C-alpha cells in the first residue's frame, strides 16, 4: 500500500485522502480556487482538480477530451475491467445504457417507493429513540438507502450489512488497496450472479428482472456482464452517496437549531432546504481521465492524468453562489451540481431527493430537538464520497 506523505503545499500537491481534507475540505478548496481554476498534483500518478463551477461544468460537458472509464481517483490505474455502465461509459455507448435505467427512477416511480422508505425510517427510529441518544450515522442514515435500493432490486433487505461492507471496501479502502477492492467487487458480482440465475428459473417483478428483460435497439437482451455492471453501479452509487447526504444534513441540523426550528415551523421550506443541503454538503466527487490535451478555463490539461471532478467544490464557488459558504435554507436560485452536470447526471437523483426528504421529515417529527454529543466525535469518510460515518447525537432540549 503506497504511503501518502502529509500535504504541505495544497495548491501544487493536493491529496483528497489527507486527514485535513477529510475533516474539513472547505478552506482547502477556497485556497485552491483562489490559486487557479484548475490545480494539479503529482500524486495518484498525476491528477487535476477543477476548483470553480465553470471549470467543473466545462469538463463535465466535454466527453471528447475526458473519459468516464475510470470514476475513482486512485493510486493505481489497472486495466479497465468490472465496468459499471452507464457511469463508466462514454458516448456513443453511454446513452442506450443510461436510458435503460432512467424509467425506474422518475419522480413518479419514486412516489410509489416513498411509503416503504417512510416505514424504514420509522422502524429504525423505533430501535433507538428510547435510548435518548444514538450514533445517527451508524443506526439511522446508513440503513435507509441500502434498504430502499434492496427493496427496488428485489434482494433481501437483511443482506444490507454485507452491501455496506463491500461499498466501504470499494469506495474507501480501495483507493489505496487494490486487492481489497478487487475482492469486494468479485464477491458482489458473485452475489448478483446468483440472483440473476435464480430469476432465470423464477422470474420476479423487480429491478433486476427489469434489467434482465431489457432489450437493446436490435432486440437483443443485455449481456450478463452488462446487467451485472449496472447492478454493481446501482448498489455502489445508491448507498454511500445518499447515506452521506442524509448524514451531513442531520449533522447541520444538529448544530443549527435555528434551521431546525424553522423547518419544523415552515415545512413548506423542505424542498428548498433539501436543495441547499445538497449544494452545501454535496457528497460525491467523480473522476475523469484526460484522453487528449486541452485547455480548461485557460489552464492547459495534459492527457494521461486523472481529474478529480469536484462537484462539491463547484457548489462552494462564490462566483456562482452568493454567500457560498453559508447554508441558506430558503435560497431561491440554486443551480447546484450535486448530482453532476451533463450526460452523467445521477440516475438516482430523484431517489436521493426523496430519501433525504423523507429521512429528515420523519426524524424531525419524532426527534425535533437534538444536538451533537459533546462527549464523542463526528468522523467523516475518506475519498470519493464525503459524509459522516460517525455522528453521535443527544435527543431533547438539553442537547
Amino acid at each position, binding site marked *: 500500500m503506497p504511503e501518502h506523505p502529509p500535504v504541505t503545499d495544497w495548491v501544487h500537491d493536493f491529496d483528497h485522502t489527507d486527514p485535513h481534507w477529510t475533516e474539513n475540505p472547505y478552506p482547502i478548496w477556497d485556497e485552491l480556487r483562489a490559486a487557479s481554476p484548475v490545480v494539479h498534483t503529482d500524486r495518484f500518478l498525476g491528477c487535476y482538480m477543477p476548483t470553480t463551477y465553470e471549470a467543473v461544468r466545462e469538463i463535465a460537458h466535454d466527453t471528447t477530451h475526458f473519459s468516464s472509464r475510470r470514476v475513482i481517483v486512485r493510486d493505481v490505474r489497472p486495466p479497465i475491467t468490472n465496468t459499471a455502465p452507464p457511469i463508466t461509459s462514454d458516448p456513443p455507448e453511454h446513452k442506450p445504457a443510461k436510458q435503460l435505467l*432512467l424509467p425506474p427512477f*422518475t419522480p413518479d416511480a419514486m412516489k410509489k417507493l416513498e411509503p416503504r422508505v417512510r416505514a424504514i425510517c420509522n422502524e429504525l427510529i423505533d430501535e433507538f429513540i428510547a435510548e435518548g441518544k444514538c450514533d445517527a450515522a451508524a443506526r439511522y442514515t446508513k440503513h435507509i438507502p441500502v434498504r430502499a435500493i434492496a427493496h427496488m432490486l428485489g434482494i433481501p433487505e437483511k443482506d444490507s450489512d454485507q452491501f455496506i461492507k463491500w461499498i466501504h471496501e470499494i469506495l474507501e479502502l480501495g483507493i489505496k488497496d487494490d486487492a481489497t477492492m478487487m475482492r469486494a467487487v468479485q464477491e458482489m458480482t458473485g452475489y448478483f450472479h446468483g440472483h440473476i440465475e435464480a430469476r432465470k428459473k423464477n422470474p420476479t417483478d423487480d429491478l433486476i428482472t427489469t434489467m434482465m428483460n431489457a432489450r437493446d435497439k436490435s432486440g437483443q437482451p443485455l449481456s450478463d456482464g452488462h446487467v451485472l455492471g449496472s447492478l454493481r453501479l446501482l448498489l455502489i452509487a445508491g448507498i454511500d452517496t445518499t447515506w452521506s447526504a442524509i448524514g451531513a444534513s442531520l449533522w447541520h441540523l444538529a448544530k443549527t437549531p435555528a434551521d431546525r426550528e424553522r423547518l419544523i415551523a415552515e415545512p413548506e421550506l423542505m424542498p428548498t432546504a433539501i436543495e441547499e443541503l445538497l449544494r452545501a454538503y454535496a457528497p460525491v466527487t467523480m473522476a475523469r481521465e484526460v484522453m487528449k490535451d486541452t485547455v480548461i478555463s485557460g489552464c492547459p490539461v495534459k492527457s494521461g492524468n486523472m481529474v478529480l471532478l469536484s462537484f462539491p467544490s463547484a457548489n462552494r464557488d462564490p462566483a456562482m453562489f452568493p454567500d457560498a459558504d453559508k447554508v441558506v435554507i430558503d435560497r431561491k436560485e440554486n443551480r447546484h451540481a450535486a448530482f453532476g452536470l*451533463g450526460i452523467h447526471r445521477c440516475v438516482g437523483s430523484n431517489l436521493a431527493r426523496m430519501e433525504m426528504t423523507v429521512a429528515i421529515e420523519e426524524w424531525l417529527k419524532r426527534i425535533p430537538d437534538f444536538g451533537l454529543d459533546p462527549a464523542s466525535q463526528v468522523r467523516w469518510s475518506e475519498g470519493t464520497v464525503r459524509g459522516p460515518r460517525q455522528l453521535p447525537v443527544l435527543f431533547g432540549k438539553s442537547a
Partner: protein
Amino acid sequence: MAGKLKIHIDQDKCQGHARCKALAPELFELDEFGNAHETGDGSVPAGLEDKAWLAKANCPEIAIEVTEE
C-alpha cells in the same frame, strides 16, 4: 405591463434533473426517461410567471429559455 411569457426547453441540453417539474409542475411534464418538456405550447398562464423564472434559475443545465412575447 410585461407581455405574456413563453418557455422553451432545449432538448439537447436537458439531462432530466427534474428541478423544473418540482418547482413548476403546471409548466413542465416529464417523459418516461425523466426528461422535461414544456406543457402545451409553452405559454405561461397568468399568475405563473414567477414560477417560470424560478424554474429557469434552477435548471442546472441552463436548458430552459423564458421569452416575453
